[in-house]
């Protein structure tokens, strides 16, 4: 059963960018852990999804995030040559290069989809990247593009309501 969102108190508050990060568990996730271990602060706007490898990230995941209303998506993996699976990030790099071009061409704000290489030792870099990405997405504003409310293709807007049971 899908739970409806909690009463939307967020709306009164200042808008905060919502960013989803896909991090490979060997490098970037460990890098983010290291940032934690070293207590390097960064903005709280990012929610991390742990994946085995940046090569696991299907570009459609990014699309689904944006469609569902995320303001930005960040995919991060090991530096080239360091992939735990030796090649995963190379495939990822190609896919994302193409995907990013596609989104840009369609007029999607390029700041909404970002990719980084962060190693397990780069806690500091991770924090920096989050800071930059959050700032850029903040500058881009709320994602009204791919997550635009459903436009009706025809038919007039709805007015009358009747509630059944509550």
């Amino acid at each position: 059963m899908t739970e409806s969102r909690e009463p939307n108190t967020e709306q009164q508050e200042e808008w905060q960018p919502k960013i989803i990060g896909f991090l490979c568990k060997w490098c970037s996730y460990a890098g983010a852990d290291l940032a934690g271990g070293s207590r390097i602060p960064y903005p709280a706007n990012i929610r991390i999804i742990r994946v085995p490898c940046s090569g696991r990230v299907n570009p459609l995941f990014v699309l689904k995030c944006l469609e569902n209303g995320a303001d930005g998506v960040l995919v991060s993996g090991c530096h080239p040559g360091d992939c735990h699976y030796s090649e995963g990030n190379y495939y990822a790099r190609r896919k994302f290069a193409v995907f990013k071009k596609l989104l840009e061409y369609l007029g999607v704000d390029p700041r909404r989809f970002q990719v980084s290489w962060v190693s397990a030792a780069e806690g500091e870099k991770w924090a920096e990247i989050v800071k930059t990405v959050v700032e850029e997405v903040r500058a881009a504003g709320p994602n009204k593009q791919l997550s635009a409310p459903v436009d009706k293709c025809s038919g007039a807007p709805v007015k009358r309501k009747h509630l059944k049971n509550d």
Partner: protein
Amino acid sequence: MTEKIVSKEDLKKILEGLMKTSELLAPGKEGDLVLFKPVKNPEEVFFAYPNSLKPVKEFFFPPREELFKHEIREGKVGLSSEHQENRKRVIWGVRPCDAKSLLMFDKMFDGEYKDSYYLEKRAKSVLVGLACNEPLDSCFCLSLNAGPHAKEGLDVLITDLGDDSYLVEGITAKGEELFQGCGKESGEGERTRKKELEEAAKKKIRKTCQPPPDLESFFEDPYWEKVSRKCISCGVCTYLCPTCFCFDLSYEGRDCIRFWDSCSFSPFTKMTSGENPRREKKTRYRQRVYHKFSYFKKNFGEIACVGCGRCLRECPVKVDIVEIVNQCSKDKTKD
């Protein structure tokens, strides 16, 4: 009912008036396409089009329609069913074939289970017809109990007499209401002119659709395999068909949505087990033909085709349903 002559100027005024009191939908150009759109400026209304790309069914049976919403809060469920605003809607420039198709929709959406969404939209709409003086090669309405000047299903019919004057024929009270107090009485000359135009238009329609009376007996014929071969199951014919009404339901977030679906698609009948009674293309194409020319007739007494020709025109691989049903009868006479 009444007949009137109105000038182009008058029409524009009427349109302007309607825009204020009701929702006005009329054909307009979008690039190379003619589509019905809400009218923002009477100048945009397009008169000289053979027919719109999408039939007017979309205003009664939209490609996507929200049926109800749900909300779950603390384990409790609330449902809200929302209906269209009760504003009058005038659909301007409906071709007679499309108007007729709505009568078939009525049969489908009324009956034992009444579809309130459809019926409500139907009740508040007025259909202003535009007679066809220049039917297309692909039109074949004449052979299906309709015609370029047919009135069935319309509330009012306008015929372009050519010299910036239009003959307006009221059909229902709803329709007449729109033209109250404008134009002048029509004269004999104008009536003859209209008759001539109608005859001329009818002559231009050379395509006829003659399904064999015993279509059922061909059901197992290898013919279907043969004729369906080039069909790519794209569903364009069904989506653009004014009498096709298949749909699917799905939840999208908190909304329950109804949207167009098509018997041409293989997943249409595919069960979760993977079993699919219409997995083969042949069976799907046959379903489309039989539904129109046999099953609907059996269930509702009429062929579910109005001869608008959209499927012939828009099929990306030029599958010609008319040829296919006609051919079927010829084959029969051969053996």
